[in-house]
Structures are given as structure tokens and as C-alpha cells.
């Protein structure tokens, strides 16, 4: 029987089928960070349990770490305690951790693929909803809660029920200046933040195949914003080349064997999906979110929508509330919206290609006078190092942007990087919820190139006109 990619990944990991339809699903890799793991480790201690398979886990601290000078450590005592606790737990249970001083430290969803700890065909979990990112390698990856973190640590398994299959096919080629971020924002704008509820989404079509593996990570990262716990892309030659030579990737004979297996990681030609969504790539323009939900998004050459023209009363009310929070008038051209701050980073857009895209725009230009701060936060120490070798940091600092240490930073403002009430930000992160980047802060989700262009112009601009 023909299978989807999701069917294949699922079937390969079923340890046991229970009577109620749930399965004991084997987990190949668990990624661990400081916020959602302390009670899980504590649960193990309380129950006098050990970690089932230590080497299946990899940890790092990302949410609470400062992005400025780290020689003083973390000054906020609550944040410091969480990070120290992770260090202690990893030491006690013998789990490899890329600690704060380690060049490999970074955002958990950046370091997994970077280290080759995420491989095609794996099941990958982490106590974080953006674990869907790892699906870009042809893996089944999804976020879990703290009790499940403990369950996976103790048993290397989770009790799960299978989702339905959805294919989002982005057909044809995108135009110049249109990136992976624009594709995924357009998808979310089309199917809505609940569109993927109950589904595992496979992203396919010519435009997805044309993306680099890093671009596919950007797309899969935001599957959760479309309501799906898991997003994935079939493995291909690009996937294989991406993985080759990475620290935890197989070598020699094993590599050859693995690559043979990875070639099967695609949906069969006649596989059945429960739902198929087709989007024409040619119609996708650079996107800017205007509201307080990722589905409230439009093209950069459009205007802020008018709630009065929405027929659904619930939606109308939601739009009106969002515009009020965002301090926007219906009908305003998107390009007329001025920004106070710019954030380039997060597990969505902090990889080397993202920084390169931002640097292309920033090169030889300067931050606009009305923009108070532009933060460039690489996704990992290795991304930072690579960018510095390419001289990207010089381009950014010459433009008046701040070059920071790796971490989640202003994606969720758990460390010192945040928006002040009323401040407006062009952000390459994934959530524009009220208060996400700081109480009262206003977030517009965009691609790295669009964010850099907004930093230079002081307002949103259509980056296609600059290239």
C-alpha cells in the first residue's frame, strides 16, 4: 500500500499498538532546554528513574541567556537559576549539553540540525512547540509538554495518536525577493492558524523543493502557527548534502547505508492525503503581518485591511481588536508603517542564509534615524562564527545594527531584550501575539531581507524594488 512520508515515519517508529488506538512511539532524539525540563528531571529523581538512553538526548540553554557580554554570567537570578538547573541536571544524568560558554550553544532548533543531531528519518521531540522545524530534514518532529519530556527521558517513547495527513503544495516558482518566510506566512494567511489542527503537514511542490534546507526549516518552523504539531519536507539530494560531514552524522559505510534509506523518505506517488491545499508560488509577494495572530498577514504592497468589510462578525471583532492593539488604521498602506525596532533572529530566521540575506540589504546602508535599535541575533555560536568569517558582522555594525550573542532573545523577551509598551518592531520571529516581545509591544512578522530593509528605510518597503 502506498504511504505518505508521515505514514512511513510513523510506521517505522511504532513500538506497540494499544487497544485504544494510541501507540507507543519510539523517539530517536530528544532536544532539551532550560525552561521546560526542570520538573521533568525532578520527576525522574522523585521516582528514582534514570534516563533510558542518554545519548539520544542533547541539551542547550537558549530562552534565558543574555545576548550581550556574557563574561558576567546571567544577572537576572530567576533566569540564572533555570540555566544553572539545566547544567546540573545534564551533569547529573549524563546528558550532553552545549553550555553557555560553548561555541555550539544556540537556539535548540538551530543547533539540532547544525550538529547533525537531527537526521532524516528520525523522530525528534523537544519541550517546545517549534520543534516542527526539524521536519525540514524529512524527520517527524513535534513539540511536547513537560510531563512528556519526562516520559521521553524515562522510556525513550511517547504515547501518541496518529494525526491525519495534509499536503500543502506550493506549485511553480516564486519571484525574486520572495523567501521561505514569505511562503510560509502566505500559507498561514491562506489556511489560517487552525487550518492544520489535527494534521501533520507535508510541504511539497516545486517552490518547496527549490528551497535550501535552511529555507525548508523556516517553513516547517511555522507549521505550528498553522495549527499542525508537525511539518515536514521530503528528503532529497539537498538534504543529504546538508547533513554530510556534521558532527553527529554517520560516517563511512554507515553513511552510505543511511543515504540509501533516506532516499525512501518521500510520499509515494499515489499516496492518499486527507486534505490537499495548493498554492500558486507566482502569486506570493513579500509578506508583512499587520495583526496579533500570524494569519493576520498581507502583501507588502497591500493596505491594512478594513474590519468593516469582513462579513463574519467574530472575525470582524478580532480584526478590530488587533488593529487597536497594533495602533493601526484600516486602509493605511503597509509601506507607510514606521518601525521603532528591528529584530533579526529566532529559530525561524537566524541561520547563516538568513543573516546573509539581511546583510545583502544592509550593505553600504545605514539604519534610519527613527529606528531606535536593530538587533541581529545569530541562532548559534557557530552561525555567529561563520558570519564573522564572512564579514557580515562588519556590514551590520557599519549600518548601525547591533551584533549579539546567540539565543532566543527578543523572540519572546525572556531575557533583557524586549520591546517597550507601544513600540513597533519588524521581526523575523514567528509569533506576533500581544505582548510576545514585551508588554504592549507591537510585532510585524517579516523575512530577514524585509526586516533589514525596514531598518534602513525606517518603515516597511518592498524589498523587490531594491534588488
Amino acid at each position, binding site marked *: 500500500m502506498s504511504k505518505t512520508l508521515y505514514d512511513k515515519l510513523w510506521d517505522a517508529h511504532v513500538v506497540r499498538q494499544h487497544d485504544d488506538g494510541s501507540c*507507543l512511539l519510539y523517539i*530517536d532524539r530528544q532536544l532539551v532546554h532550560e525552561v521546560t525540563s526542570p520538573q521533568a528531571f*525532578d520527576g525522574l529523581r522523585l521516582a528514582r528513574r534514570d534516563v533510558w538512553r542518554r545519548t539520544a538526548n542533547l541539551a542547550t540553554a537558549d530562552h534565558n541567556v543574555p545576548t550581550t557580554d556574557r563574561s558576567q554570567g546571567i544577572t537576572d537570578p530567576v533566569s540564572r537559576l533555570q540555566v544553572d538547573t539545566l547544567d546540573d541536571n545534564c551533569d547529573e544524568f549524563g546528558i550532553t549539553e552545549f553550555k553557555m560558554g560553548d561555541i555550539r550553544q544556540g537556539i535548540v532548533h538551530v543547533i539540532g540540525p547544525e550538529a547533525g543531531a537531527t537526521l532524516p528519518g528520525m523522530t525528534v521531540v523537544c519541550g517546545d512547540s517549534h520543534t516542527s522545524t526539524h521536519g525540514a530534514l524529512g524527520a517527524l518532529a513535534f513539540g511536547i509538554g513537560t*510531563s512528556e519530556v519526562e516520559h521521553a527521558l524515562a*522510556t*525513550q*517513547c511517547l504515547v501518541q495518536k496518529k494525526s491525519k495527513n495534509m499536503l500543502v503544495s506550493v506549485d511553480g516558482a516564486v519571484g525574486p525577493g520572495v523567501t521561505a518566510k514569505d511562503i510560509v506566512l502566505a500559507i498561514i494567511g491562506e489556511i489560517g492558524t487552525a487550518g492544520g489542527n489535527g494534521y501533520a503537514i507535508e510541504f511539497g511542490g516545486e517552490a518547496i523543493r527549490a528551497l535550501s534546507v535552511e529555507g525548508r526549516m523556516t517553513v516547517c518552523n511555522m507549521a505550528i502557527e498553522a495549527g499542525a504539531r508537525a511539518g515536514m519536507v521530503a528528503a532529497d539530494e539537498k538534504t543529504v548534502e546538508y547533513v554530510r560531514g556534521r558532527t*553527529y552524522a*554517520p560516517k563511512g559505510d554507515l553513511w552510505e547505508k*543511511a543515504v540509501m534509506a533516506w532516499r525512501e523518505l518521500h510520499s509515494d506517488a499515489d499516496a492518499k492525503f486527507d486534505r490537499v491545499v495548493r498554492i500558486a508560488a507566482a502569486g506570493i509577494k513579500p509578506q508583512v503581518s499587520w495583526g496579533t495572530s500570524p494569519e493576520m498577514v498581507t502583501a507588502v504592497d497591500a493596505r491594512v485591511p478594513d474590519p468593516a468589510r469582513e462579513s463574519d462578525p467574530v472575525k470582524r471583532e478580532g480584526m478590530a481588536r488587533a488593529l487597536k492593539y497594533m495602533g493601526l488604521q484600516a486602509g493605511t498602506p503597509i509601506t507607510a508603517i514606521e518601525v521603532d525596532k528591528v529584530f533579526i533572529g529566532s529559530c525561524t530566521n537566524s541561520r547563516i542564509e538568513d543573516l546573509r540575506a539581511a546583510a545583502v540589504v544592509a550593505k553600504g546602508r545605514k539604519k534610519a534615524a527613527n529606528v531606535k535599535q536593530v538587533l541581529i541575533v545569530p541562532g548559534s555560536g557557530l552561525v555567529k562564527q561563520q558570519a564573522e568569517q564572512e564579514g557580515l558582522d562588519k556590514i551590520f555594525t557599519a549600518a548601525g545594527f547591533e551584533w549579539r550573542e546567540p539565543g532566543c532573545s527578543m523572540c519572546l523577551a525572556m531575557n533583557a531584550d524586549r520591546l517597550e509598551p507601544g513600540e513597533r518592531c519588524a521581526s523575523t520571529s514567528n509569533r506576533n501575539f500581544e505582548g510576545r516581545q514585551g508588554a504592549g509591544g507591537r510585532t510585524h512578522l517579516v523575512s530577514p531581507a524585509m526586516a533589514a530593509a525596514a531598518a534602513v528605510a525606517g518603515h516597511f518597503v518592498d524589498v523587490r524594488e531594491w534588488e
Partner: protein
Amino acid sequence: MEKLTTLTGLVAPLDRANVDTDQIIPKQYLKAIHRTGFGPTLFDDWRYLDPGEPGMDHGTRRVNPEFVLNQPRYQGARILLARENFGCGSSREHAPWALLDYGFRVIIAPSYADIFFNNCFNNGILPIVLPAAVMDKLFAETLATPGYQLSVDLAAQRVTTSSGESFGFEIDEFRKYKLLNGLDDIGLSLQHAGDIKAYEARRRVEAPWLFLE
């Protein structure tokens, strides 16, 4: 979760009705990163004369000598006698965590709040329901007898006094099974440890690159 089959232990009497979870563990302690360590702040408002904050050294706080658990004769108690509607209020799982961390494995009361009752089972605590008349008798004997102990036999569903008097109690079969075997959800999955190992053995052959050390 630690299994519970039989337990013979020192008994402490908490002679108050409607003890809510905010009294069992006050809200300021919920910011913690641990599930353990709540023992020193169990019944915090009653136990200490000065207000408590997380991060304090509770050993240096002024102890309320009036509070029953502070009396020397109840140190090391494993069984708590309580009154009606024990554990009402918020659903915080910190309440059973605190009781467990303090050392209680068994609570005996005439009735409990629902969520708390559930939370107990999920954390390896056995909440026993006995009629109010029996509770009166147990409270009286505990107060009259220093070092008063009770024996609990979960399999037989009986509580026995040192004089040999014994009382039966009811418990849901599946909960009893989980407690007797020390099974929480993780425990239940670990019952299939053989299947997990067999799966791993097969995958080590099929896909050895997933098991690089």
C-alpha cells in the same frame, strides 16, 4: 512512582475541615523549578510565625509551637489524619508534591476534594476514605497514645491499629493496581520495556546510524 503495598507508620492528626491547597502550599512557592523541595513549606502559614518567601532558609524561621506537626512526638509521621473535604481549592499539583516531600504516603480522611484526590494517585500518595465515626476514634487514639502507629495494607484494603482493630476501605481497581505496582503513566509505558528493547535491537540492525554514541 514508588509502589505502595503495605505501610506501617507514625500518625499525625490534622484536626481541621476544609483544608485547602493554598494552606497545604501557599502560592508564592509555585514559581519553583522543582517538584521536590516543597516539604519545608508544607502548611507554611500554620507552621511558621513569620511570613515565608521562596529562596529563604526555612530552617531559620520562627516555628509555631502550637501547630500540631511541629510537636516532637509527630516528627517522622508517614500517615496524616484529616477531616472533611481535605485538599479543596486550586488544582495545584504542588499540594501532593509537598505532602510527599514532607514524608506522607497515606492520608486518611472522611472526604477529599476531587482534583486533589486524583493528584494524590498520580504522585504515589494513597488517600483513604473512612467514615467520620471511625475518624473520630482514630483521632482520639492518636492524641491519647504517643508514638501511635497504623498499618495500611493496600492489597487487602485494610487499616489496622496496633491493638489489632481493623477497618476496610474502598478503592478503584485500576488505581489500586497502579499504586500496588508503582505505576504512573511512565510506569505503564515501562511495563513494555521488553517491547522497547526489542524495537531498539531491531533498529540497531536496520538503522545503526540512529544509535551512534
